[in-house]
């Protein structure tokens, strides 16, 4: 599981991203009460238009960071997926502290999104970047509590051990609050739906408002890749990862990842969106205490 793993991980990311594109189109069509075909075609038309579009630049941007931000976002997604085990001992990065590595990936996402919004040197992207930092940092705390809670029954910070600890019972049953909290973290990590404060429509695209042509397409692709990596992580931590009868481990993980992807797309399209200030209050005043209670409960159960 070394060199052969890279094409496999890339394939996994691409497959998941394609699934999200289809799910997004279906969800939009269902909400509009229309057939899904035209929506899907529209997505591909849009992507083709972006890819063949012209690259427009702003005045005095930080060009290197601007162009590299999608690559870094995608690299973080790949690093996040690399700690996910696809079978017993089948994780690309095996560390006794791999769940902390995932936490580092989450923290670096905030940095990358900020850089992406800061580097064009333009107002809307910068506002998007600030909003993202204001909401992204408080989201880190529930994320850490949730991950620590998941590590408690395993008595280890290794994702492999966390999967193995779910042989008897999945964490989603043992820690019912964990998955919903973690999904909120995921929405924030991938800038989707109610947590989309960086790239939102009310800022004309926010941190990617000045992106154009292939650069914007790359940013969207990196967001999809991060969504897939997050879903694989959520499936691993809460749904037992590769564990399952009959089918081989990687297939089980793929199925569970697809399930989480569906939940994420549904949350994107169904949950209401709050103004930033109210969301920040909500994150600190409601979500943080709730996640602390969750950790307390998880600790008591694990005892």
């Amino acid at each position: 599981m070394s060199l052969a793993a890279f094409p496999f991980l890339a394939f996994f990311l691409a497959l998941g991203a394609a699934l999200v594109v289809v799910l997004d189109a279906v969800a939009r069509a269902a909400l509009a009460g229309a057939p899904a075909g035209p929506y899907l075609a529209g997505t591909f038309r849009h992507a083709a238009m972006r890819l063949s579009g012209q690259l427009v630049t702003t005045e005095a941007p930080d060009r290197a960071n601007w162009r590299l931000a999608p690559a870094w976002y995608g690299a973080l997604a790949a690093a996040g997926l690399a700690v996910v085990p696809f079978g017993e001992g089948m994780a690309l990065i095996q560390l006794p502290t791999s769940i902390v590595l995932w936490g580092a990936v989450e923290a670096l996402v905030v940095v990358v999104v900020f850089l992406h919004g800061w580097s064009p040197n333009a107002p809307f992207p910068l506002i998007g970047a600030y909003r993202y930092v204001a909401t992204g940092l408080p989201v880190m705390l529930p994320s850490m509590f949730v991950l620590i809670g998941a590590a408690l029954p395993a008595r280890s910070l290794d994702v492999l051990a966390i999967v193995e600890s779910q042989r008897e019972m999945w964490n989603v049953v043992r820690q019912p609050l964990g998955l919903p909290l973690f999904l909120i973290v995921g929405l924030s990590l991938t800038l989707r739906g109610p947590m989309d404060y960086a790239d939102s429509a009310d800022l004309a695209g926010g941190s990617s408002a000045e992106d154009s042509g292939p650069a914007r397409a790359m940013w969207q692709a990196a967001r999809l890749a991060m969504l897939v990596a997050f879903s694989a992580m959520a499936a691993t931590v809460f749904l037992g990862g590769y564990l399952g009868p009959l089918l081989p481990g990687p297939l089980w993980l793929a199925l569970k990842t697809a399930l989480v992807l569906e939940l994420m797309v549904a949350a994107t399209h169904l949950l209401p969106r709050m103004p930033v200030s109210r969301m920040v209050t909500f994150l600190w005043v409601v979500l943080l205490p709730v996640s602390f209670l969750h950790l307390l409960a998880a600790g008591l159960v694990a005892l």
Partner: protein
Amino acid sequence: MTDALFTGLSALALYAGWRVFRVDSMVRASFWLMISFIAVGGIGLLLSAPYIGVATVFMMAVEMTVMVLFMVMFMMNPAGLNPMMMVHQHRFSIGVGVVAFAGMTAATLLTDLPSNPVAAGKAIVHDLGIELLGDSMLIFETAGVTLLATMVAAVILSARTGRFGDAVEGSVPPGLEPGGTPAGRVPEKSGGHHHGHGGHDHGSHGDGRSDHAHHHEGDGHDSGGHDHAGDKEKHA
């Protein structure tokens, strides 16, 4: 393999550390500092410290994000995309840095360093956990309480008003006549504009920015933004 990685990561850590004080933007500076920390975290992994190495990356990513926010709040030249050089006692500082480095290197090379490397297969993270909540719990808890005290102190220091009135009460010298302006240094009234430092041409930057504002507001829009841009030019 380990040696090559170590050489690469140390070079990155040192180069990034040097860039921190050489780039012209505070945002870039703090992210270079973050890269330096990440490289040290990577070296930590090579030194078989899996928890500390990864936790360094995690902590520094968050810390540098906060730092960037503060940079932009307090610095002139917030977006940091025009040149800047703000140093004092430059030669002296270079000297001190070089002397410190030379001294410590000499001490390293001249000392007979002990050798007792980590045994392979040691349960490092497990041992650390037992230590943290066992023998060294007092130290660990002291660190926690210190952090809590710091948070309280930070809030008190930075709060605009306290329970017994303005937070600056007592830190501003009394007036020369009753109710007069405070003695000593008079605060600037320009809202924190320090564009004078460095002697660079800021006028052109102001122009560029106001152009940009126009671009985004579109034509025939309310003139609030235009006034603001005009203000900026006046100050610059």
